[in-house]
């Protein structure tokens, strides 16, 4: 009885998850990420603070 309940619950939820996944277009391909507002790593260190602000200001869509 307990075993059957556990099997039913887990398998039911798994099947439901698979069903939801069928409707998810972003499972196989995602839209590209929103571009970064400022560089990372060495590029970030080379830029002066003012430049970062300008770069960020240039990206209204980001």
């Amino acid at each position, binding site marked *: 009885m307990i075993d059957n309940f*556990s099997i039913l619950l*887990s398998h039911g939820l798994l099947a439901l998850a698979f069903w939801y996944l069928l409707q998810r277009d972003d499972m196989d391909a*995602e839209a590209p990420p929103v571009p*970064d507002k400022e560089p990372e790593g060495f590029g970030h260190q080379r830029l002066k603070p003012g430049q970062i602000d300008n770069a960020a200001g*240039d990206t209204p869509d980001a």
Partner: protein
Amino acid sequence: MRDLVFVGYLALILLLAFKRPFLFTLIYAYIDIIAPQRLSYFMLNSIPLSLIVFGLAVLGFLISDDKKDVRISPRWALLIMLLAYCGYTTTIADEPVFALEKWGWVWKALVFAAFLPLTLRTRVRIEALALTMVLCASALIVTGGIKTAVGGGGYGVLVLLINNNSGLYEGSIISTVAIAIIPLILWLAKHGTIFKPDWRVRVYVAALIFSCLLIPVGTQARTGLVCIAVLAVLLLRFNKYRFMYAAGAVTLGLMAIPLLPQSFTERMETIQNYEADESASTRIAVWSWTLEYVKTHPFGGGFEAYRQNKIKYEIPVIDENGLDTGDVLSQEKEIVDEGRAYHSSYFEMLGEQGWPGLVIWLLIHVGGVWRMEVIRRQYKKRAREDEEWVAPLAIALQNAQIIYLIGSLFVAIAFQPFVYMLIAMQIGLDTYLVRRRKEAAWRPIKQRRLGKVAPPEPAPNSA
């Protein structure tokens, strides 16, 4: 009847997978974790189910997946190296017949772990794998939790769906795994998009975590209690209200003691008196044997090399007050044993795969803890709204691995397929994030030329 239900269920989910082939990969994970062929009496036993589904998963990947997104990482290469090295030690194994038997399932676990990261190309896929693993483990955990709650537990007594000691169905292994996945369950509850966080998810998650905590009580595996303690400490790390949390956890723990079965508290007390316990004494004797063994066999003895050991150990006599009477030799009980298992993943790797195998294995695991830390720090710093899920997932995977690494000090689960799926998820997350960061990287020259950042192009299949 149960056979028919399982066949029908499998047919249904396989049918769904023909529409979206990545589901084959998830179905393979399901078959590997739950092993429905073991729950079935004859129908599923008679066909090589996992081989068929793995073939479909690979075929689905080859035909329908975009291979340009595929990335590999150093840890992925280490997995392949471990696979090749284990293959080699199997050919020179001291116990060739038993070694071949273990190799029969180990190579599958490693090949699947190497295959998984290639398919984890989107956030949804990573989440889907986490969800599948949790739900599959829940089949065993829910039944174990309920049986424990109604008083059906006991060391070696608690039966999880079937009376079988392999895979996750073994008491110490399910205790470690049940606690290790709690961070992942919490992540799914907060950042899940397949089952969006609402009151139903919260109720289910609370019940499932309670069940997870009951598993070490039900199986009376001491490893589980150690894992709970490790989890409690790990959760403290990122808690804003540390003192309140610690006080709450201690209070809850103390309140739980009177409610625990007496057999459980008695068994847990043996952690302190490990010298008087046969199981613990065996461990220490086997570990000493292994250290001696690798002095003459630095490249290991192949799978199941422990079967050749003959160990002798002594158990001090304990009086009725629990004190070691210990000074008279004649009072000590001497035990001679043969073919005792390692009872530790570290010694399992050392004895079976020697120093090279242990080093590769440690690099894979410690490398995972380190990479998740790097990701956590990196994404905390990036602080982008669309990446809010990343750092918590890295923490969850890191915590799961630390719990496993501590739990596996006392249980030989170095090749547990479930854990390799966790590692594959870490590698998949890591390579996915590298690719996404590259795609999102700042492009000053383009910006200057266009005067602004080009808007993102829509994905071919996006809605």
